[in-house]
């Protein structure tokens, strides 16, 4: 739920962007896959520990080359995920900005929010189902509830820490509140907000999966739990790999988006940050 590491942008190794770095990483990936292959061959237990090759083939058949599965299960999962995450992003920025600008409001909401974000979100599944049923609304609500906190906290912190000179300058030019918000405060807080969105995305994926595992009639998580109940271990592993690929792709997309947005910002503010 928390993201202390976020405060410290991960230091990239000097050689990580270079060709040697890329080669080293590819080699490590290959080594990992090879280790699984060798380990499972030695274990000789194809029921529980299928080889990398078997899993890859099943991943291809079951998901990647299977449009029906995408339409019936992939799309619903992604829709819930993105719906919940976007809702969390909007709500989080709105609440966070208000809390960051108004100290009294932050005092009022602090204890309440501290309590709410301490509830492990999966524990909310039973009451949410009682309240909202097992449909998409419940799943989106659960994702919203769990993924909103990193955005709220980062937006509030980013907004509260906008350089006072920047704020004063904006006020000296008698900009309207709306202009101050959209042209000064939010852009200045953007790096923190984006960092919060990254953390909240990984929480959203977790909650999408757990809500579908727990109660659903379609979705990737639903397929996963069906495979488990039917003792189809290969399907289980293939779906786990699929979820990993989805998480990886979403993180990559967000990183690209972040780089674009922040580059624009740096150009605007003259690269002072």
């Amino acid at each position, binding site marked *: 739920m*928390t993201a202390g590491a976020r405060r*410290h942008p991960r*230091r990239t190794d000097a050689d990580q962007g270079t060709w040697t770095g890329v080669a*080293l990483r590819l080699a490590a990936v290959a080594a990992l896959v090879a280790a699984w292959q060798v380990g499972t061959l030695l274990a000789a237990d194809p029921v529980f520990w299928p080889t990398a090759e078997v899993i890859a083939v099943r991943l291809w058949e079951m998901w990647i080359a299977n449009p029906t599965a995408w339409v019936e299960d992939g799309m619903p999962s992604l829709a819930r995920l993105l719906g919940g995450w976007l809702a969390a992003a909007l709500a989080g920025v709105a609440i966070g900005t208000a809390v960051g600008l108004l100290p009294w409001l932050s005092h009022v909401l602090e204890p309440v929010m501290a309590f709410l974000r301490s509830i*492990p979100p999966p524990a909310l599944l039973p009451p949410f189902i009682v309240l909202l049923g097992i449909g998409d609304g419940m799943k989106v609500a659960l994702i919203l509830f769990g993924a909103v906190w990193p955005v709220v906290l980062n937006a509030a912190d980013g907004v509260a820490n906008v350089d006072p000179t920047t704020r004063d300058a904006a006020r000296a030019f008698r900009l309207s509140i709306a202009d101050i918000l959209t042209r000064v405060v939010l852009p200045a807080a953007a790096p923190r907000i984006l960092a919060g969105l990254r953390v909240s995305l990984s929480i959203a994926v977790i909650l999408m999966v*757990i809500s579908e595992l727990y109660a659903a009639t379609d979705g990737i998580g639903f397929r996963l739990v069906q495979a*488990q109940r039917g003792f189809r*271990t290969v399907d289980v592993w293939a779906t786990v790999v699929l979820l990993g690929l989805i998480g990886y792709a979403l993180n990559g997309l967000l990183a690209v988006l972040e780089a674009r947005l922040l580059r624009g910002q740096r150009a605007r503010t003259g690269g002072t940050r």
Partner: protein
Amino acid sequence: MDGASTLTRALRGAAGIALLLALWELTARSGLVNAASLPAATGTLAAAAGMLTDAGFLQGVAETLAAWALGLGVAALIAIPLGVAAGSIAPVRHAVNATVELLRPIPSVALIPAAILLLGRDLDMKVALAAYASAWPILINAIYGVGEVDPVSRETARVFGFGRLGMLWRVILPAALPLIVTGVRIAAGFALIVAISSELLAGGGGIGGWMLERSQPGVPREQLYAGIVLTGLLGLAINAGLRLGEARLFPWRPQARVAA
């Protein structure tokens, strides 16, 4: 932010809590929501008070906490040495970074079905999953913490003649420890999420199992919501305790500004 006194802040915070409870009470009593789905705040809090001495619920809490603590401990035992090694030795760092990049996107809860198949529905399964989920933040923070050790600190130790081992023990570990402990605090949250998730899915024991029983049709809902309230307070207590521990252990670190 510091314009208001501690008393004012406390009063405002209390007002916020009162507001939340009043809103809850009104919603439940107004009939907007089916009374069978959402019990009133008063009834829920009374149930929560009763559960504090309820043997069944307390046993569930103890089971969850046992899995949580074991998982976190196993993760720390593996991830801290590995992270320190990766932070200090470039080839190990490349290998570990690649592994992290590859495995971390897999949502930990997606492994619950596999773990149920492989390990059954016992404590082992919960511990293994909690350990898996909490290893990542600890590992990443350990690598990062070692990388962040101040070069002046390292040079100071070198000038006074410390070798690799002395440097590791006297400088690198103490300097990286605050970030490692922050990693453990982050991991603690994930471990709790995963432990409760696996209880909900495997249908056995712990807080998750207890909630599962209380969500069955025909069971009064007060205890279910009271369980949420108490779980939230438990999470709050764990987090506050770890933060306090950090502040006590590493008083030279500026207080983490936000609890992100």
